[in-house]
């Protein structure tokens, strides 16, 4: 009974059967919604999706904060304790832990503050209650196991590594003035095409002698290829810098440049090019394509180096493998059908005028698998089906090609 004597509605319960390791043992657990609620781990949107600014008050002593969802342009006014709670909502801490932190910080706790804040945040699309990726969901489900918890902690740690700066516009402007502008000239475009043709010719000639070329790796082909791949990651920085130069070329602003671990796993450089969406389609397409051309140019140069190197030497094998991986990166970056939103995908959706192509296509494919897809088949549905089929086939082919390449090198 509540203090007012009004009976509160019963909280819902789920009865779940949890199987043991053997075939017959099981345990039935009743999980109340309240228990699930306090164990949930709310996660605010990524840092790039919101801005937080303090509002100095001339009347009250308590500071206020404006929280802006940069994607939906929605604003929320937060009190200082709400801002504190918001900062705790990182997807790692449960509501129980967040409430405890609040008590330790302020010495008191209002039981309505968290649900109230969460409702506000959910309405402003600033909060999710589940970890983002499938991997993270699986880890979250098995968090009780020590090993899983360690992996999850490691991923969170890596994800938090973010070396970035938001004051990079002057750097990119200087880089553009000191020669970056040359990249966007007709002469460079022609040189790029000629280099690509020369690289293609060199690549074809190397391919004919592939067996001899890979022998140059000697006794450790696997580790040599791993080194090639690591060296390749360094060139991702050049890819992103060219994107940034394209922004300057079209008089737009580079908002951020940095290094992070994507999803806590993939080390990568990134540049915030969102300002280009205020430019025209040509600007957007050039910005998208120019970064990928870095790999075409580097790959061509590597192929030419490999062709000039002595047959069967380590230099030749290393250069040929580097050329191959650069050209793969070029193709992958511009190829839109691979479920990854890379440069080519952005060009495609821009041209088609379907900004949520991947999300819509995956949702439709899921509905088809569940037998819940609508019966009529329009052009839009054909586009989604085509996207999913092409992407699936492409990824399969890409993996098969790389496996074949490594096996061939190893043998």
């Amino acid at each position, binding site marked *: 009974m509540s203090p007012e004597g009004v009976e509160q509605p019963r909280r819902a319960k*789920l009865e779940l059967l949890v199987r043991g390791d053997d075939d*017959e043992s099981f345990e039935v657990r009743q999980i109340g919604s309240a228990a699930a*609620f306090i164990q949930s781990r709310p996660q605010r949107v990524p840092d790039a999706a919101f801005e937080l600014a303090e509002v100095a008050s001339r009347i009250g002593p308590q500071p206020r904060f404006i929280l802006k969802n940069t994607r939906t342009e929605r604003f929320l006014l937060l009190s200082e304790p709400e801002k504190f709670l918001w900062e705790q909502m990182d997807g790692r801490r449960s509501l129980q832990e967040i409430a405890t932190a609040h008590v330790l910080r302020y010495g008191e706790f209002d039981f309505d503050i968290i649900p109230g804040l969460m409702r506000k945040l959910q309405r402003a699309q600033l909060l999710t*209650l589940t970890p983002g990726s499938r991997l993270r969901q699986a880890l979250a489900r098995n968090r009780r196991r020590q090993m899983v918890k360690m992996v999850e902690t490691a991923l969170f740690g890596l994800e938090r590594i973010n070396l970035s700066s938001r004051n990079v516009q002057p750097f990119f402007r200087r880089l553009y003035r000191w020669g970056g502008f040359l990249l966007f000239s007709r002469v460079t475009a022609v040189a790029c095409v000629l280099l690509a043709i020369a690289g293609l010719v060199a690549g074809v000639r190397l391919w004919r002698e592939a067996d001899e070329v890979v022998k140059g790796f000697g006794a450790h082909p696997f580790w040599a290829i791993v080194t090639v791949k690591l060296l390749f990651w360094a060139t991702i920085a050049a890819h992103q810098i060219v994107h940034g130069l394209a922004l300057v070329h079209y008089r737009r602003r580079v908002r951020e440049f940095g290094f992070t671990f994507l999803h806590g796993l993939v080390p990568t450089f990134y540049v915030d090019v969102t300002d280009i969406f205020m430019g025209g389609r040509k600007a957007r397409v050039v910005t998208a394509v120019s970064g990928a051309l870095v790999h075409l140019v580097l790959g061509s140069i590597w192929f030419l180096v490999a062709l000039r190197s002595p047959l069967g030497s380590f230099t030749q094998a290393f250069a040929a493998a580097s050329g191959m991986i650069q050209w793969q990166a070029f193709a992958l970056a511009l190829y839109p059908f691979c479920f990854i939103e890379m440069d080519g995908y952005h060009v495609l959706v821009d041209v088609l005028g379907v900004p949520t192509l991947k999300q819509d296509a995956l949702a439709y494919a899921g509905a088809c698998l569940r037998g819940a897809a609508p019966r009529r088949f329009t052009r839009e549905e054909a586009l989604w089906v085509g996207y999913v089929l092409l992407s699936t086939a492409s990824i399969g082919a890409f993996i098969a090609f790389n496996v074949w390449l490594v096996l061939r090198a190893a043998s």
Partner: protein
Amino acid sequence: MPSAADTRAFLGGARLFRGIAPPELDALGGSLRERGLRKGQVLFREGDPGEELFLVQRGTIVISKGVTGRVEQVLARIGPGDFFGEMALFDRAPRSATVQAESDVTLLVLDRAALARLTEQSPRAAAAFFEALVRVFIERLRASGDLVAEVTRWGLEATGLDIESS
């Protein structure tokens, strides 16, 4: 091994057979098979083929449906006098849920052939059986609706999602 009189007394008390006269109940009792399960034993799993109805004579079984990994949602518990598995008796579709003994269990098994015999030899008894079956179906349909509502409410409460004002 229970005697025929014990079986008749048990069947007479089971709501599925309440409307059936003693002589016909004796005949039906003769065509039922007995089956025992030890605690924890799985009778059948979701997706298995099946065409039998089971009547619980002793013990409790738990009916569950897979949710994720090793976790299943408990749909119902069935105790003495109650029955389960009736859907497969009619639609020949794979089992829709997993059934496992929560304690040592004794079951009586009614298969399609026994039901056909009952329908052929005693249409009045068969009509009483089907009427009782429909009543239980309705009861279970209502219970399913309640379960869906409960699960939905659970989800809303567990996530703190405020639908009314969003």
